[in-house]
């Protein structure tokens, strides 16, 4: 159906000296979840979303959406398990989802701590500004 670009690329790359001379490296490159398969590129691209979420840790807490971060954390946890029960086992997918869950959890902690601090901050403002 699709022009078989990837098998052609794979044939060329497997002829490279650095791969032919290192059978362990060759096995890694040609593995069932390796860079010639979608099993590699889909999770690798998912890192963009995770990195965007980690970058969002610098955004003000008020702009963080709690439902979204609960979804991100739950997704990360469930998918970490998923990546071990599929064929082929996908360590790239596992790592990206561990970080997704971690970043979601970090955002939720920020929200939780901000929510706990607000009543005290408001009280302090009232004391400083009696008018």
């Amino acid at each position, binding site marked *: 159906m699709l022009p078989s670009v990837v098998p052609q690329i794979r044939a060329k790359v497997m002829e490279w000296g650095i791969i032919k001379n290192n059978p362990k490296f060759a096995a890694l490159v040609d593995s069932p979840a390796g860079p010639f398969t979608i*099993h590699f*590129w889909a999770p690798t691209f998912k890192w*963009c979303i995770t990195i965007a979420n980690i970058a969002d840790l610098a955004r003000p807490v008020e702009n963080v959406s709690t439902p979204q971060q609960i*979804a991100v954390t739950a997704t990360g946890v*469930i*998918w970490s398990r998923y990546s071990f029960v*599929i*064929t082929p086992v996908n360590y790239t997918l596992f790592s990206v989802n561990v970080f997704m869950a971690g970043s979601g959890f970090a955002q939720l902690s920020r929200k939780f701590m901000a929510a706990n601090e607000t009543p005290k901050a408001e009280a302090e403002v009232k004391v400083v500004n009696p008018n």
Partner: protein
Amino acid sequence: MSAAVRAWVKSPTGPMTTHFWGPVANWGFVGAALMDMNKPRDMISPKMTGVMCVYSILFMRFSWMVQPRNYLLFACHASNETAQIYQLGRWAGLTKE
């Protein structure tokens, strides 16, 4: 009918397995996209929407090639792709607004 339901419940991609709940979690993206369909155009982030478009195409292929083949995940990413392409079209001014 209950025999079919029971067969599904016990199937290798049924609701007792992660193969089911993983994609269920991903439907959250689709829900968020649907809720955002009417938000003002200037609130649409072309970067995030573009990333989502590429992400869903890759995972549509992934869900097809993975063992066991995951139709629920495929449906989820096909829907997300549609929603994100629509949003990108809105941002680019291609829709009647």
